[in-house]
C-alpha cells in the first residue's frame, strides 16, 4: 500500500467508480441482449442509439421491457447494498442488512393485501406495499426517538420483533389465500422483476437517487461512527442527529425499494462485505462501490433468472439468495483467517 497523499483518496474514489461503472454498463448490455427472443448485439445497439424505429418489434421489446428492467435491477441493487452498508455501520453490526429494522415486514403485509384485493402490480401493489413499509418506518422512528436511538441492541431487538409480528400476519394472510393469487404472493415475497415499466423506474429513481447523494455526504461521519458512538461524539460528530438522519434516509430508501420489487434477499448483506474485504472500511470508497457493485450484481442475477430455463422465469430473489448465501459463507471464512 502506498502512503496516503491528499489527492490519493479522491483519485481512488474516482478510479473505483469508473471501473465499476464500466462493469455496470457491460452488465446492462448483456442484460439487454439476453431474453426469450434472439437478436444480434448489433441490431440491439442500433435500436438503442440512433436508428429508432418505433414500429419495429425489437424497439418495443427493448424500450418497454428490457431497458426498464435492467435499469430497475440496477436501482434496486444499488439501494439495497447501500442500505446494508449504512445499517452495518450505524448498528456497528456486520450482520445487519436492509430489512433488519422491520421495514420488509410492513411492506410485505401491504403488498399481500394489495395482491389479495386484485390490484395491478403498479401502481396498486407498489402503493399498498409502500404504505405498509411507511407504517413500519414510522414505528422505527418512533421507537428510536427517545434514548433508544443510541442503544443498538434495543433498536435491533425492536426490529426483530416487528419482523416476527409481521411474519405471523403474512402467514395468516397466505393461509386464507387459495387461488392463483398465491403464486403472485410467493413471487412478491421472493423478489420479482418480471413486470417493470419505465414509469415505475422513473418513480423509484426519483425517490432513491436523492437518498444516494444525501448518504454520500455522511460517508465520513459513518467512518467515525464505526469507531464507537463515544469516539464519534468526542471527534465532533453530532451523533444523535447523524444517527437519526441516516436511519430515516436509509429506511425511506429501502421502503421505496421493497415496495417496487418485493423482498430481494442477500444483496444488502453480501455486497457491503464483499467490498469491505477488497477495498477496506473507508465509507467514502465503500458507498460508491456498493452502489455500482450492487447494481451490477443484481443486473447479472436478473440476467441469470431470465436465462435459466424454468416455467416462465425464476424470481430474481431465488438467484440472489442462491449465489449470495454461499458467497457470504465463503467471505466469512476468508475474513476469519
Amino acid at each position, binding site marked *: *500500500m502506498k502512503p*496516503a*497523499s*491528499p489527492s490519493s*483518496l*479522491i483519485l481512488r474514489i474516482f478510479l473505483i467508480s469508473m471501473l465499476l461503472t464500466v462493469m455496470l454498463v457491460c452488465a446492462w448490455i448483456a442484460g439487454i441482449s439476453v431474453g426469450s427472443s434472439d437478436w444480434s448485439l448489433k441490431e440491439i445497439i442500433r435500436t438503442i442509439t440512433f436508428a429508432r424505429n418505433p414500429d419495429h418489434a425489437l424497439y418495443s421489446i427493448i424500450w418497454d421491457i428490457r431497458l426498464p428492467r435492467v435499469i430497475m435491477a440496477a436501482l434496486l441493487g444499488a439501494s439495497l447494498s447501500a442500505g446494508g452498508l449504512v445499517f452495518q455501520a450505524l448498528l*456497528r453490526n*456486520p450482520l445487519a442488512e436492509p430489512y433488519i429494522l422491520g421495514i420488509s415486514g410492513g411492506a410485505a403485509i401491504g403488498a399481500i393485501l394489495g395482491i389479495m384485493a386484485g390490484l395491478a402490480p403498479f401502481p396498486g401493489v407498489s402503493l399498498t406495499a409502500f404504505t405498509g413499509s411507511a407504517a413500519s418506518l414510522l414505528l422505527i422512528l418512533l421507537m428510536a426517538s427517545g434514548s433508544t436511538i443510541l442503544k443498538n441492541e434495543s433498536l435491533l431487538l425492536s426490529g426483530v420483533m416487528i419482523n416476527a409480528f409481521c411474519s405471523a400476519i403474512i402467514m395468516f394472510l397466505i393461509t386464507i389465500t387459495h387461488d392463483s393469487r398465491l403464486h403472485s404472493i410467493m413471487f412478491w415475497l421472493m423478489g420479482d422483476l418480471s413486470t417493470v415499466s419505465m414509469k415505475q423506474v422513473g418513480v423509484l429513481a426519483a425517490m432513491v437517487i436523492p437518498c444516494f447523494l444525501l448518504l454520500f*455526504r455522511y*460517508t*465520513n*461521519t459513518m*467512518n*467515525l461512527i*464505526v*469507531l*464507537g458512538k*463515544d*469516539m464519534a*461524539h*468526542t*471527534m*465532533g*460528530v*453530532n451523533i444523535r442527529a447523524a444517527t437519526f438522519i441516516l436511519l430515516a434516509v436509509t429506511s425511506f430508501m429501502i421502503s421505496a425499494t421493497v415496495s417496487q420489487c418485493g423482498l430481494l434477499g442477500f444483496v444488502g448483506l453480501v455486497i457491503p462485505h464483499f467490498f*469491505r474485504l477488497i477495498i*477496506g*472500511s*473507508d465509507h*467514502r470508497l465503500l458507498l460508491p462501490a456498493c452502489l455500482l457493485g450492487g447494481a451490477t450484481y443484481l443486473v447479472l442475477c436478473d440476467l441469470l433468472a431470465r436465462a435459466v430455463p424454468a416455467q416462465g422465469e425464476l424470481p430474481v430473489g431465488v438467484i440472489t439468495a442462491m449465489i449470495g448465501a454461499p458467497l457470504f459463507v465463503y467471505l466469512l471464512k476468508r*475474513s476469519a483467517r
Partner: protein
Amino acid sequence: MNDAITIEKLNCGYGSHPVLKGVSFSIRANEFFVIIGPNGSGKTTLLKAIAQLIPSSAGRFEIFGKPAGKYSIKALARTMAFVPQENLIDFPITVEEFVLSGRSPYQGILGIPDKKDIETARQAMEFTGINSLAHRKMDRLSGGERQRAFIAKAICQEPRIMLLDEPTASLDLAHQTRIMDLMEILQAEKGITVVMVSHDINLAAMYGNTILLLKDGRTVGQGPSSQILTYRILEEAYGCTLLVDESPLGHFPRVTPVPQRFKLDIS
C-alpha cells in the same frame, strides 16, 4: 485564566440513580490530573461528564473560562480528546486511517485530508512509536499497540486537554510505564492538560501533579499526592488496610495493600 476546567456542584446520573452528587473541583492548565477512587465511586462517569458524553447539571462548568455549553461539538473536539477504556474496534480499519481520523474536527464534511493532516498523523504515529504498524488493521493489534494508536489519534486532534479512562488497565508493567511516560512528555512538551482516571494509586502518585479522590459520587479530597495519598484518607475511602511509605524513587507516597495474614502482626 489559569484553569483548564472549572466545575462546581456537578450532578450526574443514569435515570433516577444519581452517580455524582455535587462534585466540585478545578483543573489547572497544563497539569497532570489524576482521578482515583474505589469501584463505583463515579470516576468514569465524571470523565464522561467532562467530555459531554452524558448529560449533567452543574452550578458552574467552564472549559478555559468559557461555559462548556457554549462550545459547539466540533469546537469541543478541537479542545478535548477522549481516550476510552473500552477500545475494541470491530471494523478492519488500518492504524493509519484510524490515526488520521483524529483530524476530522478540522476537516470538511467529507474529511478529505490535506498535507498538514497527513504530516500531523505521521508525527503522532512516530511520537507513539507505531510507525511500523501504519498498515496493520486495528482489530489485529495487541492491547498496548491499540492503546498507543488511540493516543496517536487523540494527539492528531491537537487538543488542549486530553481525557483518558484507565489507559493502563490490562497492560503489563512495561506498557504501563510507556503510556504514562508518553502522557508526561505530552504534558511537558506540548503543554497539554492531562486528565486521567486510574485504578493504580502508585501510578497516580508517580505521575500526577494533582489527585482527585472520589467516593460514592462525592469529592473526598483534591491536592498533591503527598496530601491526598495518606493512609488515613485512603483507608477511609477504600475500606481496607494499607501501608503508605515513601517511594524509593523520590518524594511521593507508595501505597501497598496489606494482605489479611499480616494484619494481626501490625496491630
